C-alpha cells in the first residue's frame, strides 16, 4: 500500500486560489442589496419633465423630441436601450450619427441621436404584407408585432430611415417600440432615462387634421431623408445657427446593400417565366419566320426537345415558363425568416404591393403549369403573369429609392421578360433588345449618384461581369445563336439583378464615417 502523495505547497495554493476564484461575493449576500418588495421603481423625478403627463388626444401622437444642443454624442442612449430592452448581442434600436459643415471660420459639427420616428404615415406598416405593424390608436407608436412577422424584410427596404432590423436568430424584424410598456406605466423609455444630458424627451404632437396623416415636419432634421414620404413627427430642436452645407458625416461612405440571393434568383426566374409564358401565348401572332426559326432550332428539329416530345407548338415555351416560375417562387420562400407563417401573406393586399405580387403569382403558377398541358390556358397565364410582373415592379418603385425608380425597375424586369420572349424566336431581335436594355441600365453608371459610385467602386467587378455576359450574349445571339447564347443572356440578367439589389441607394439617418 502506497501512502497518498503529499501535495507540493505551491500546488495546494494553486488549487486553493482556483477554488477561491470561483466563489462569488454575492450569493452570501455580503454586498447584495436586500430590497424586500417589488414596488420600488426608478425615482420618477429623474425624468418627470421628460415624458407627457397625459395620453395624446385624437389627432395627436407621442413623438421623440431631441435637443440637439444637449446631444454631445456619448451614445449612452444606444447601449441603455440595448441593455434595458434585452436586445440581441449586436442589435441596436437607436443610433447616434454626425453631421458636419460650415467653413474655416465657423466649423460646425453636431451629433444626432435617432431611433424609429413612429411616422404618421409609416412606410414599414404600409408595405407589410402580413399586417405585422400596427399604429397604436392612442399613442401613435408604430409597433411591430413580432408574432405576425414572416421575416420578408420588406419593411427594411421601405423605411427611409433604416430603422427595422432583421434578426438572423429569430428570423424576424424588430424595432424600437418607444418602450410603450414603460410609458404605459409612467416610466420613461430607456433612452430618455439614460441620457446624461436629458437631450431626449417624449412629447405629444399633432398628426391629423381631418383624416389625412400630416405632421409639421419643419423641426425634422435637415440632413435626413425627405420627411414628406412618411411624415416623421420626431422634432430636432436647436438654438444654434446651422450652416447651409450641413451633410451627414457618412454621406460619402459607400454601403453595398445585401444581395438577397433568393430574391435575385426569384426576380430573374419570374420575369423570365412570364416572358416565356407570354411568348407561348402570343406564338401564333409572331411573324412566320420567327415561328419557323423557333420550330427549326428549338421545338421541332433540335434533338433534346424532340426527344422530350416538344414539336411544333408552344409547349416548350410554356414548359420553361412553368419550371422557371416554380423555381422562382420556391426561391422566394428561402428569403423568408419564418416561411411557415407565409400563408398569411395576402393579408396586407390593400396597401402592400408585396401582398399583391404574392397573390397574383400564387394564382399564376397553376395557370402557367396548366398552359404547359393545355395551350388554351396560355393567354390567361400570360395576362396574369404580366400583372404579377407589374406588382413586382411596384414593390421596388414603392420604396422610393432612386435606383429602383419606375424608369429603371420597369425596364429591367419587363426587359428580362421581353428578352425571354424573343430569344427563341428571333435571336437578332433579342440581341438588339439586350443592347437597348444594357444601354438603359448603364445610365445609372454615369449619373454620379450613389448607385453610380457603388457600381464604379466596390461593385466594379460585378458590373464588369454583367457587361461581359451581356456583350458576349449579344455576339453569340447574332453569330451563333443557341443554348449557349441563351445561357449567357440569363447569366447576364442574373448578374444585373444581383447589382439591382447591391447597388441600390439605401437612405438612412446620418451616421458616422466607416
Amino acid at each position, binding site marked *: 500500500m502506497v501512502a497518498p502523495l503529499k501535495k507540493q505547497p505551491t500546488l495546494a495554493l494553486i488549487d486553493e486560489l482556483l477554488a477561491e476564484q470561483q466563489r462569488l461575493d454575492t450569493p452570501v449576500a455580503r454586498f447584495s442589496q436586500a430590497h424586500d418588495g417589488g414596488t*420600488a421603481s426608478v425615482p420618477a423625478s429623474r425624468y418627470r419633465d421628460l415624458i407627457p403627463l397625459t395620453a395624446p388626444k385624437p389627432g395627436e401622437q407621442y413623438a421623440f423630441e431631441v435637443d440637439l444642443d444637449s446631444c454631445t454624442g456619448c451614445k449612452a442612449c444606444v447601449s441603455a436601450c440595448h441593455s434595458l430592452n434585452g436586445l440581441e448581442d449586436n442589435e441596436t434600436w437607436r443610433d447616434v450619427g454626425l453631421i458636419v459643415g460650415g467653413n474655416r471660420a465657423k466649423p460646425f459639427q453636431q451629433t444626432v441621436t435617432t431611433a424609429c420616428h413612429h411616422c404618421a404615415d409609416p412606410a414599414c406598416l404600409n408595405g407589410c404584407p402580413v399586417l405585422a405593424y400596427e399604429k397604436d390608436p392612442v399613442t401613435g407608436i408604430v409597433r411591430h408585432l413580432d408574432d405576425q412577422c414572416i421575416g420578408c424584410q420588406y419593411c427594411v427596404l421601405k423605411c427611409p430611415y433604416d430603422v427595422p432590423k432583421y434578426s438572423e436568430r429569430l428570423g424576424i424584424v424588430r424595432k424600437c417600440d418607444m418602450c410603450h*410598456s414603460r410609458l404605459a406605466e409612467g416610466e420613461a423609455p430607456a433612452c430618455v432615462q439614460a441620457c446624461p444630458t436629458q437631450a431626449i424627451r417624449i412629447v405629444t404632437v399633432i398628426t391629423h387634421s381631418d383624416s389625412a396623416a400630416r405632421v409639421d415636419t419643419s423641426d425634422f432634421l435637415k440632413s435626413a431623408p425627405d420627411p414628406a414620404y412618411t411624415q416623421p413627427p420626431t422634432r430636432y430642436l436647436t438654438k444654434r445657427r446651422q450652416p447651409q452645407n450641413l451633410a451627414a458625416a457618412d454621406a460619402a461612405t459607400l454601403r453595398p446593400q445585401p444581395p438577397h440571393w433568393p430574391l435575385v434568383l426569384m426576380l430573374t426566374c419570374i420575369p423570365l417565366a412570364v416572358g416565356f409564358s407570354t411568348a407561348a401565348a402570343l406564338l401564333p401572332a409572331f411573324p412566320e419566320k420567327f415561328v419557323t426559326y423557333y420550330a427549326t432550332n428549338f421545338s421541332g428539329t433540335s434533338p433534346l426537345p424532340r426527344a422530350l416530345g416538344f414539336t411544333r407548338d408552344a409547349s416548350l415555351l410554356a414548359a420553361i415558363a412553368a419550371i422557371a416560375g416554380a423555381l422562382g417562387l420556391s426561391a422566394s420562400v428561402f428569403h423568408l425568416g419564418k416561411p411557415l407563417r407565409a400563408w398569411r401573406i395576402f393579408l396586407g393586399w390593400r396597401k402592400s404591393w408585396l401582398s399583391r405580387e404574392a397573390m397574383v403569382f400564387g394564382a399564376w403558377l397553376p395557370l402557367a403549369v396548366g398552359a404547359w398541358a393545355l395551350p388554351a390556358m396560355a393567354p390567361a397565364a400570360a395576362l396574369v403573369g404580366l400583372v404579377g410582373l407589374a406588382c413586382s415592379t411596384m414593390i421596388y418603385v414603392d420604396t422610393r429609392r432612386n435606383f429602383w425608380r419606375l424608369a429603371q425597375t420597369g425596364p429591367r424586369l419587363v426587359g428580362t421578360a421581353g428578352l425571354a420572349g424573343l430569344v427563341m424566336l428571333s435571336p437578332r431581335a433579342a440581341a438588339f433588345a439586350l443592347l437597348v436594355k444594357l444601354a438603359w441600365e448603364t445610365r445609372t453608371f454615369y449619373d454620379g449618384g450613389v448607385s453610380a459610385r457603388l457600381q464604379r467602386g466596390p461593385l466594379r467587378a460585378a458590373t464588369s461581369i454583367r457587361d461581359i455576359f451581356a456583350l458576349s450574349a449579344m455576339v453569340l445571339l447574332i453569330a451563333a445563336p443557341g443554348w449557349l447564347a441563351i445561357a449567357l443572356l440569363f447569366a447576364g440578367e442574373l448578374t444585373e439583378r444581383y447589382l439591382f439589389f447591391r447597388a441600390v441607394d439605401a437612405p438612412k439617418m446620418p451616421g458616422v464615417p466607416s
Partner: protein
Amino acid sequence: MTSEMVLRPGDFGLGRVPARLAPAATTNMVCGFCSTGCSLKIHLNAAGEAINLSADPDYPVNLGMACPKGWEALTPLAAPDRATAPLLRDPTTGKLGPVSWERALAAFTEKFKAIQARQGKASLAFLSTGQIVMEEMALLGALAKFGMGMVHVDSNTRQCMATSHVAYKQSFGFDAPPFTYRDFEESDALIFIGANPCIAHPIMWQRVMLNTRKPEIVVIDPRRTETAMASTLHLALQPKSDLTLLYGLAHLLIARSAVKPEFIAAHTNHYEEFAGFVAEFTPARVAAETGVPEETLHRLVGIIAERERVSFWWTMGVNQGHESTRTAQAIINLALMTGNIGRPGTGANSITGQCNAMGSRLFGNATSLLGGYDFANAAHRTHVGSILGIEPSTIPTQSSWAYDQIIDGIDRGEIRGLWIIATNTAHSWIGHRRFAELRKKLDFLVVQDMYATTETAQIADLVLPAAGWGEKQGVLINSERRLGLVKKVARAPGQALSDFAIFKLIADAWGCGELLREWSSPEATFQILKKLSRGQPCDFTGIRDYAHIDVSGGIQWPWTEEDERTKNSGDHGASLSSDVGLLWSQLQQRRLFADGKFFTADGRALFLFDPPRPMPEPPDAEYPFILLTGRGSSAQWHTGSRTDKSAVLRKLAPTVLTAEINPDDALRLKISAGEQVLVRSRRGTVKAVAFVTPTVQPGQIFLPMHFPAVNVLTFPSFDPHSRQPSYKAAAVAVIPAS
C-alpha cells in the same frame, strides 16, 4: 417571439426590465473603464451571477447615468477569446500552447531567475497598468521590488497621467487633484484645456450640464470638438502652442490687475519671478504664436477676471506633450494667481484617464514608494519598512526608470526580462514598431492579461490568464480621489485567476511568499495600504473596510480617523449643519485646499515655469501636416482589448481608420471624402479613409488613437519631468492611396 420582449417590474429600485433578465438581487460597484468612477447597479440571478446592469441612481458621481462602455461593462467578460489557461511558447514549434499553472510558474521563475543570475537583479522589469485594483498594484509593486529585487518598473499611467502627477507633486507638494465633481456644477466659468469630456468623460459632462449658474464654457483645443461645439468660447490654437497661450493669459491678468495679491502672498512662493517671466508674453506675440486673435485672448482674460468661480480642467491634450509638466503648471499658476482654488467651483483640475490611475499614482511603487513616499529618503524607507515588516535595506534607494527608459534599457541590453500586466504595449506605445523590434532583445517576455489575443500577448513567451473587473475584489480611486469598490459578480473562465492571486502564486513560487504573508487577501491588503496612508495627504485611515466604502457611496481621500470620528466635511473646516441630507451631500463632495495650506514643507504652493520650446518634430516641406491623435468615440477604450468584444460598442465606433482632413487641404490634394489615403511619417505609412471635415484646421490631420496603425506614425518625444510621451504632435504627409 413577443415573449422575448416582455418587460416586467425589475424590483430593487429598478424600472421595468426584460422578463428573461429579471434580477433576483442587485449590488453596486464602480466601473472599470475610465477614471470618472461611475457606480453600476449589477443585476444578479439567484446564483449571484451578473446578468445585466444599469446605472446606479444614488451614487454621487454619476447620478443614475453611465456611458456606453459602462452599460456594456459585463460583455467583455464573456468574450470567446478570454485566456483560460497559461500559455507557454514551445521552443520547437514556436507556438503558444496551454500548460498547467505549475508549469507556468516554473517557467516564470526559472527564466527570470536565470536572467537575474546572469545580468543582475535590475535586468528584470515590469510594465503594468492603471486598470487593476489598488491592492493588486500595491502587491505587484511590493512583490517585484521587495521580493524579486526589481528596480525598474512602470505602468501605462505613464502614457496618460504622469504629467499631472509630477505637476501636482512639484507645485502642491503632493499628487493631489483638488476638486470634487460638484465643482462642475458650481463653477461660473469652466475652462477646458486639451480636454473633450463630451466624448472622453461623458458623465463629467453631465455634471457640467447640471450647472445652473449660466457658466461660461471655454474650450482650448486645435479641433472643433463636440465639447468645443458646446462651448461659449472656443480657442482653436495651433497644436503645442498651449504653454505660450497660458503664459500670455497670465501676462494679461497681471496687466489687468486681476490677480489676488493677498492669496499669492499668503499661500504661494516664486510669484514675483513668474510675473517677471511672463512680461515678455505680450498679446501680439501670443496671438502670432498660437493663432488665437488678440481680441479672443482679451475676452478669455475678461472671463477669468470677472467671474467669481473659475475652474480649469485639463486632460490628455496637455498631459501628452513635450513640455507637458510646465503646461499643467501654467494652468495651476493661473488658478493660484487668481485665487481660484479651494473654493467651490474653482481649481486647477486634472481629469484623470484610467479607472485606477489615481490608485497607481499612490501605490504603484514605481516613481514613488508605496503611499506617495520617496525611495531616496532613508526615513521614508524605514517608515514603510516598519509598516510592512520588511528590512528597509530591501527597499531600492532610487525610483524606477520611466516607461521610455525601460524601453531604452531593453535596447541597450540592460533589461532582458519583461513582465507586462494588463496593458498592450505593442499597440499603444509611441512609435510602436520599435517595440516589436526590441522584443527580439528580450530573453523572456511574460504577458498577464484577460485576453491572449492582444498584440502584446501574441508576441509573449508566457501568457498568464487573468480575471477581469467584475471577477475580483478591490478598490479603484477616481479622478476626484474617491475610493470605490469592485466586487466579484462573475466567474473567471477556465483557469484564469485574479491578478492578486497570480501575484500570490508568483510570490510563493519565487520563494518570497513569507515576505507577503500579511497580504493574504485584497481586503487584508487594503488594511495594509490604510496604514501606509496614515499621516500622508492621502490618509484614508478613517475608512473601516470595504463595507464602509460600499454603504457610503465611495469615500474621497483624505478621510482620516479624525474625520470619521467628527464627520469633518473637509470643506469648511468646521462641523456641518444638523440637516442630515445636507451633511451627507457635503460629506460626499469634498475638495482640497480650502484653508490655503498646500502639502509642501512650508505649506505654500509654487509657481513653476520654463520658456516654451518648439515641438520636436515640426512639419516641413516633406511632412507638411501635424498629426493629432485622440479619442474617436466614447465607445472605444484603450487598444480595444475589451471594448472590441462588445458588438454594441463596435457599432458605436468607426470600423475603419478615418483620417480627418480639412476641406481646403482635401481640395488641394485632390482627396475626396471616403477615399483611401496614405498617411506617412518618418516612421512608417498607414492607410486610412479620408473624412473631410472643417472641424480640423488646415495643415492638421486627426487620427483616432484606438487603431494599432496610429502609433506607427507618432513621434517618440517625452516631457523631461514626467517622461510622458507626446502623442499629439508628429509631422506627416498625406496622399491619395491610388
